[in-house]
């Protein structure tokens, strides 16, 4: 594709364009898995602030749910900014949070936390960063595709954020988007847009800010492709063509999106399609890389557990995400209203039955005939495997961290691998445990209860193997280790509360109460988030070439750990008492009013929890600038990324071809004097000790 260079472009090439493009391709449109991993890391952390602040709003409302209470404790900033009432003297009186805002807040809190924080951080960041490094590959199997995965996750985020600006507000049907609620066209009005701007489609409700944001990120999507296909940087013409192409694509795309996503709920659906594509590309890439690009001697059973768990997670992503895509597609179709021959009605009604009524008393004009809980089946067919997508990589990384800092081989490496596989397999056949009370066939309930109970068995194997790893160890309490230990202890609490719900009969009482909310956060925050904090602090030196500040790390850890337990443990009690989740005010029910003080306590703890994250942010950014230079292997770990790659690893990762001689966890081996033995180091007589993998 080399065109005859024009003199001008030739000149450009040598003056500044070359360097400029070099930077672009190196840090922005990079196809290097490490840069992409770090890009995902920033994306996830940025969204975590958004999701966390939404959680703070949720907690604020729940602490002081009635207008009287909330006037005493008005929400900072928003109470005047959004809900303030102008008094006669011109001052603005703070208002209270409307219930629909609350509904939106927890819906978006969960959506952002799950799809844009946890999945992005676990699978996007660590999947990308660790896999090639840990298997001794130079990069992913398809580096270009890998970058594409990132550049389609970003527009997904942009569309998701756009929903906040739409007149009807963002999606407010819970993160589980159960139809018919999610299909209600209540905020799907055909409001005419702001005229006088080329980009604004007449009839679209989008204000300009999200349009610009979306335009920019859609532009980047094609610009990325151009950077590789049109060979951005070779000459002026190519740059011009690329820019033009990207701009045209961006305008067409944003206009299309504006048409389909006229309200928050449709933005929600559309954004998740995009993200689904991104996950899929990622998963295909990870799997192929692991199957195909392991270095010499790196057998499957010599891979670190992080890589193993990411491998199996990718299988889950590969097979579960498309199901979410199709159910969201049908949901989106149901959600569209259409005008035909002067008659307004719903486009399809996959999930709305005959004689369905749009509240309060409107018939929806479509035929009906759908099946409301079908969506639940399909949604949970994805989302239950998804909750394991959200914990397995953390489990893998925690295994690595624990083994490193206990200076001991992981206890029962193979059972650990089989347990991951077992969880993944069972994860596919338990989905209906979210639907015990949904009106589905009660016999089906029993079937799913049995499979759900059994998923605790591989989880137990993992838990006990972690304990086994600690047994007889030489434990170093570093920041990553503390976070990993918190993972183990908190996951046990979260997992055990799962057993209550797994029992169909007990679930009758606690389904959709705060008990579930407690469970969610013990596994997702107590489990995954601590795992992530551990992983980030563990691999930070490798990623950025700097050590993190341990003091700040300890402060962050202790504060988070205490505040976390104060926040979420009490929720079990509320749940057993019957307090419903997703409820703007429990004060409506006389029998839940006495929960107010406990809720207040929970909220204050939650604010402490939120504020503790500031230490993490300071540490993260500060260490990047001021941190001590990290050596290649600060933790004296065995795996390839520590032993063979400098910190940070160069493009192409390793400087020489690698040969692996044994498993990743040979700590305190009697064969060598030190308590660690890199995977690449061959020791005479190792066959006698190292299990034959």
């Amino acid at each position, binding site marked *: 594709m080399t065109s005859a260079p024009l003199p001008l472009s030739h000149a450009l090439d040598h003056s500044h364009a070359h360097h400029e493009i070099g930077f672009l391709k190196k840090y922005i449109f990079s196809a290097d898995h490490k840069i992409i991993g770090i890009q995902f890391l920033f994306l996830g952390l940025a969204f975590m602030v958004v999701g966390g602040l939404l959680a703070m709003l949720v907690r604020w409302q729940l602490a002081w749910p009635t207008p009287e209470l909330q006037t005493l404790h008005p929400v900072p900033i928003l109470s005047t900014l959004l809900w303030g009432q102008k008094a006669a003297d011109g001052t603005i009186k703070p208002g209270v949070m409307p219930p629909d805002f609350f509904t939106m807040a927890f819906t978006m809190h969960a959506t952002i936390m799950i799809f844009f924080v946890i999945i992005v951080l676990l699978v996007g960041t660590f999947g990308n960063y660790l896999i090639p490094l840990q298997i001794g590959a*130079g*990069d992913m199997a398809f580096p270009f595709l890998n970058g594409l995965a990132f550049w389609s996750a970003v527009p997904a985020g942009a569309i998701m954020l756009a929903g906040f600006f739409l007149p009807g507000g963002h999606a407010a049907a819970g993160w589980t988007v159960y139809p018919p609620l999610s299909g209600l066209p209540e905020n799907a009005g055909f409001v005419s847009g702001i005229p006088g701007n080329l980009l604004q489609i007449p009839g679209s409700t989008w204000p300009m800010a999200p349009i610009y944001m979306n335009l920019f990120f859609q532009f980047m999507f094609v610009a990325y492709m151009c950077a*590789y296909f049109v060979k951005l940087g070779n000459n002026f013409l190519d740059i011009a063509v690329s820019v033009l192409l990207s701009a045209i694509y961006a305008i067409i795309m944003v206009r299309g999106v504006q048409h389909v996503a006229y309200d928050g709920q449709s933005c929600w659906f559309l954004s998740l399609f995009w993200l689904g594509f991104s996950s899929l590309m990622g998963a295909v890439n990870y799997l192929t890389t692991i199957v195909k690009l392991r270095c010499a001697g790196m057998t499957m059973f010599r891979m670190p557990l992080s890589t193993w768990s990411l491998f199996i997670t990718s299988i889950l992503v590969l097979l579960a995400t498309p199901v979410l895509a199709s159910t969201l597609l049908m949901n989106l179709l149901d959600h569209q209203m259409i005008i035909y021959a002067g008659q307004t009605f719903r486009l399809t009604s996959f999930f709305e039955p*005959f004689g369905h009524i749009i509240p309060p008393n409107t018939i929806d004009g479509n035929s009906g005939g759908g099946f409301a809980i079908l969506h639940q089946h399909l949604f949970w067919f994805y989302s239950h495997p998804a909750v394991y997508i959200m914990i397995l990589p953390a489990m893998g990384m925690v295994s690595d961290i624990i083994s490193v800092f206990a200076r001991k081989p992981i206890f029962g490496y193979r059972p650990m691998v089989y347990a991951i596989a077992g969880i993944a397999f069972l994860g*596919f*056949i338990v989905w209906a445990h979210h639907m015990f009370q949904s009106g589905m066939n009660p016999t*089906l309930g029993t079937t799913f209860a049995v499979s759900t109970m059994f998923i605790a068995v591989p989880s137990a194997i993992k838990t006990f193997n972690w304990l086994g790893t600690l047994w007889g160890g030489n434990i170093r309490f570093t920041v990553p280790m503390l976070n990993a230990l918190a993972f183990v202890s908190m996951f046990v609490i979260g997992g055990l509360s799962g057993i209550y719900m797994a029992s169909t009969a007990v679930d009758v009482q606690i389904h959709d109460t705060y008990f579930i909310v407690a469970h969610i956060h013990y596994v997702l925050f107590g489990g995954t988030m601590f795992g992530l904090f551990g992983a980030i602090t563990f691999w930070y030196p490798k990623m950025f070439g700097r050590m993190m500040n341990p003091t700040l790390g300890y402060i962050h850890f202790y504060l988070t750990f205490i505040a976390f337990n104060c926040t979420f443990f009490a929720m079990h009690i509320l749940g057993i008492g019957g307090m419903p989740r997703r409820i703007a005010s429990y004060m409506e029910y006389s029998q839940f009013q006495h929960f107010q003080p406990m809720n207040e306590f929970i909220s204050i703890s939650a604010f402490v929890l939120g504020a503790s994250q500031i230490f993490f942010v300071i540490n993260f950014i500060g260490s990047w600038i001021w941190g001590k230079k990290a050596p290649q292997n600060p933790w004296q770990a065995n795996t390839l990324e520590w032993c063979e790659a400098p910190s940070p690893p160069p*493009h*192409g990762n390793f400087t020489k071809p690698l040969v692996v001689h044994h498993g990743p966890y040979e700590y305190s081996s009697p064969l060598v004097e030190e308590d660690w033995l890199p995977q690449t180091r061959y020791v005479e007589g190792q066959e006698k000790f190292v299990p034959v993998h």
Partner: protein
Amino acid sequence: MTSHDTSRMPDEPHGVSVLTPHHEVPYFVIFAALVFLTAVTVAIAFVKFPSELINVMLALAVAVVKGSLVAFFFMHLKFEGKLIYLIFIVPLLLSILMIFAIIPDVLMTAHDSNSASLHLFNAPAIPK
């Protein structure tokens, strides 16, 4: 492996590309079989069997045969290793599982939904 050459086709994996072995397949015979089976399945659709289930089963059976022909010969599945089989069998099993798990639910609720109003000109038998 360590050097990174950006001039490569971007979607090409790192490392040497392995040439695919080439297979002799009687493509035209397979094609003829597919055409024949299409004719058969259309013909069957016009036949009235005592039970409709027979129609459905036959149509699906023919589709499975046709699908296998395409997969095994056109898609060269016949010549692939275990890995490829593993990759496509898992989703097939999962999909069967999915359908079988949801069907009892529908059967339970079918008599509950107002689908009975299909009997257009009779009073509908809507459950209470």
